[in-house]
């Protein structure tokens, strides 16, 4: 009777000590995870492409640059890449939140909610790959390259291309995944 009690107490103690340390998330290296997000973003972009009226934004929203020059990208430091990606994701999340607030259609709202949660999930994936978390200062992302979009289809297009390009490249070349794979 005493031994099980002891074991239980021991387990509880271990659990507390264990939880005290930041437990590293298991690295999410499966490319299909991001591919699913990309697919959803692309589908939404295609859906919204037909939207012409009532799709312009009240004010231009900053969005990250999406184009990737491989030569340049490969030269970049991994951390810098992670920073760039995370700030871009943050910007997109902000923009989508703003658009969601101004949208009345229920379907659109659900789609935008989905996009927002996907972006959050991607941030979690990045965190799982041991990238240092980075939050752009609220003051502005001046040092980051941004440009502004004025319509929703454009926003969604940027969203899709950002995921296809920089985010995907970052995840594909993550060191955590490479070590596991090799």
């Amino acid at each position: 009777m005493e031994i099980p009690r002891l074991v239980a107490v021991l387990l509880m103690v271990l659990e507390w000590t264990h939880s005290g340390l930041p437990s590293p998330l298991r690295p999410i290296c499966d490319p299909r995870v991001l591919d699913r997000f990309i697919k959803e973003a692309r589908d939404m972009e295609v859906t919204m492409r037909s939207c012409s009226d009532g799709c312009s934004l009240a004010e231009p929203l900053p969005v990250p640059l999406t184009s990737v020059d491989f030569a340049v990208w490969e030269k970049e430091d991994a951390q810098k890449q992670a920073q760039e990606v995370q700030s871009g994701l943050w910007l997109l999340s902000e923009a989508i939140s703003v658009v969601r607030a101004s949208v009345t259609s229920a379907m659109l709202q659900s789609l935008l909610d989905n996009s927002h949660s996907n972006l959050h999930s991607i941030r979690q994936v990045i965190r799982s790959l041991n990238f240092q978390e980075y939050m752009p200062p609220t003051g502005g992302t001046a040092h980051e390259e941004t440009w502004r979009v004025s319509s929703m289809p454009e926003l969604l297009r940027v969203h899709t291309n950002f995921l296809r390009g920089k985010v995907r490249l970052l995840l594909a070349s993550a060191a955590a995944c490479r070590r596991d794979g090799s």
Partner: protein
Amino acid sequence: MTMLRKTQHFGLLIFFLSQKASLETVDRHFESKVDLLLNVETENPKCFAEGMRDLTCFWEDEDGGSADQYSFTYTYENEKSSECKVTSQPAEGAKTRYFCHLPKVQHFGDLYLRVFRDGLQIYNRSLLINLLFWLDPPANLTVTQTGKLGQLKVTWLPPPLKYMENSMMYEVRYTAGSTWKEKVVRESTEITLQGLQVNTKYKVQVRVKPDGLTYDGFWSSWTLPVSMTTAPKDVDPLILALCLIITFVLVLLSLTALVSHRSSLQKKMWPLIPSPENKFPGLFTVYGGDFQEWLGHSGGGLRPSPAFFFFEELPAMLEVLSEATPVPPRSVESRACNLPESGCKENEEDLQNAESGQEGWQPTPPAHWLMKHFQTLQQGPSPFSWSTQLESKDSYVTLDHSFQPKPQETPMDDISEESAPLRVLFTSAEISASHSDLGSLPQSSRSGRLSSESSLEYPHSIWPPKGISYASLTLADSGVSVDYSPMNSIRTAAGGIGGFYNNDYKNEIPKPNEPLSGCPIYSAC
């Protein structure tokens, strides 16, 4: 030195030639793509990317212009526009193709193109380069046989493009000669074709395209066909032989088991129902099992096969004796065997002597022959000791009309089961032959009267006759027919042996108190 230089020059020449050759092959691919794209792409300028770091745009014009007339500008998002150098190439039909190879390529971002001719914009287009891949067909296409019938394994190498390893989609097509069948393969660079015909030559081709999610583009051209023959049915003979051997062994085993247990199986499957029918001729067939009747008509029943009689061994003696002139074998009778069990040889001999001694006792040659014949016949077992008694009795049986069947009823109970069959022989006639008991047979020098007297003297052994039943004892081989007229009993002796059987010959089961010796039939009683 000059030699070295010469070799150097030679080497350089070879190098350049090889480069040119490779370029030519590349150009051939390029040319084919251009040709195809001209038909496929509707927008102008038509652009495609062959790798990760290039983009080729072109357009076609029929005016005999030169490249200088055109200017090509491209602008990436958030950047300034740049100019691309235009080159021209003559195409068939007095057309000219103008190309522009972008020096710098950026993916995942909009590219804005503009084509000017003589300062005027003729084309403009916005595109994403990562969606315009036109890859080369996969390399190292190999087709091999698998171990199984009707299968072929197809493998190839993916396009060697960085970042695009997981984004490829392949299409495999194969034919046995007439129609092509296609299969799409994703996320894998091999496939096992199944359901193919055996021993057939198949051609296989593969092409590749980005899967369309992150990267997209056009289907590459088909690889050069690779042929392979599917495996013939050579595995089957082995399996067939093994199956045959196993079947053979099993059959052998089952046969052996069957043969070894045949008797038990037979007993189980076709149990032998013993039937005494063969001992009672006509009992079941004619009289329907009515034993009384059968007994009463045993004369008729005695007719059947000679084999029956041979089995019983009885007729021989009767024949012989009866043939003799009616010298009553009385003496013989008197000397008849008293002991049923003991050998009757003495008596037989006596009988024989008596026979021979008696004048009238002249066995005809046929009788001899018959005797001999019966001797041979009687080699078989004589199951009933008292049958021989009957033999001896036979000698005494001479019945004639004077003989009246005794109405005496001998208890049937005395008849043992064993002796029952023998009754068959003699049912019809009451054996009036007397045995030794009847020593008091009166002298019957007259023909035919012996029997009656003897019968009189021998009440015990007389079966209750139903009437005058006539001798039905027949010698099978002689085919003697029973002469039922009492008068003819002995007078017909001359006619043959048939005369013998005028006796009323009743089956007599020897009673225990009646000593009847078992005389072997072949001893002349």
